[in-house]
């Protein structure tokens, strides 16, 4: 009998561990799925309101002409905000080109939307570098940089992750969140897209938002 008790106890605790692991997994998966879905597009409703206040916020940066720009200066227009860097040959030009195409599909409403590119690589992206970079795209993009601290603050407000990844020969690339944020004229987070969203998807959504 004692032998049975000693064999059931470990199996019972193992079962408990299994159930606990499954529950923990479900909670983690559920939270992840919720965040992914909520951030994907249309965060309207209760979840949207909570997220809306969590994304954005004050920043002080410098534009491609060397002029100081704060979040307050940008109110009054819809904003399409993308964080990237000019040494990025793939995701960043894709996002900025998609934004340009999406805006060209808005017709007269195009002027109500301002595309904003914020660098996550202020070390290399000076106002001059940014100016030459963004003028290559069709849309009139406002490009922002600043000190490492100013950029970090802006990125934190937008929940943007970025990190330097050193490469051979002293070069480096930047890992960074690749998200296009839509902010309303009051500076409130309204929707988001990934750099993989088709320009048509972005322009359709903007058309609805602009009314």
């Amino acid at each position: 009998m004692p032998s049975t008790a000693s064999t059931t106890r470990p199996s019972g605790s193992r079962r408990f561990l299994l159930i606990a692991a499954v529950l923990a997994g479900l909670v983690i998966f559920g939270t992840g799925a919720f965040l992914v879905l909520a951030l994907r597009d249309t965060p309207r409703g209760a979840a949207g309101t909570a997220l809306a206040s969590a994304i954005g916020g004050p920043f002080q940066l410098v534009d491609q002409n060397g002029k100081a720009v704060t979040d307050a200066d940008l109110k009054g227009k819809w904003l399409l905000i993308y964080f990237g860097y000019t040494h990025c040959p793939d995701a960043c030009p894709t996002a900025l080109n998609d934004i340009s195409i999406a805006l060209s599909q808005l017709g007269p409403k195009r002027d109500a939307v301002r595309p904003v590119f914020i660098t996550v690589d202020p070390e290399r992206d000076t106002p001059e570098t940014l100016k030459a970079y963004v003028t290559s795209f069709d849309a009139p993009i406002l490009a922002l940089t600043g000190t490492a601290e100013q950029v970090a603050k802006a990125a934190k407000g937008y929940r943007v992750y970025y990190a330097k990844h050193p490469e051979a020969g002293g070069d480096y690339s930047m890992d960074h969140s690749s998200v296009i944020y839509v902010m309303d004229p009051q500076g409130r987070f309204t929707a988001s897209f990934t750099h993989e969203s088709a320009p048509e998807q972005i322009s359709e959504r903007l058309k609805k938002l602009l009314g």
Partner: protein
Amino acid sequence: MSIKILAFVAGLAVTSAALAQPVQLEINNAWARATPGKAENGAAYVTIQSPTADRLVAASSPVAKKAELHTMSMQGMVMKMRPIAGLDIPPGQPVTLKPGGEHIMLMGLNQPLHDGQSFPLTLDFEKAGPRTVTVTVEKAGSKGPDSAAAHAHH
């Protein structure tokens, strides 16, 4: 009559098989994105097909100080770009380098790449050896020579 048709069909089959299956390694659709402003890095893309297994191990071009094989991946919403040592080319299966996946990173461009320009790119394969192709420069942010984005506006 029916023999003629049969011969025709057989001929078609042979031709299409030949088209689908090159006798040696082929590189097609070589293109790059125009680089915005004075951007120091660019990306080139190609489609590689080989009848036998091979591996792309290196790249070089006179337009850049160095060329590396890179892969871009998304982890959640975070974009990461990493150099890769090589890219396997399975037999008979085209491998397409494209935005959002693998690319040939042109690092330290001597000149910006302009839309419409073309330049040579040498790809080194483990078995097929070095192959030089002509890369056509498409618009910045283009998704490829045949994509709608490439022709969406002028």
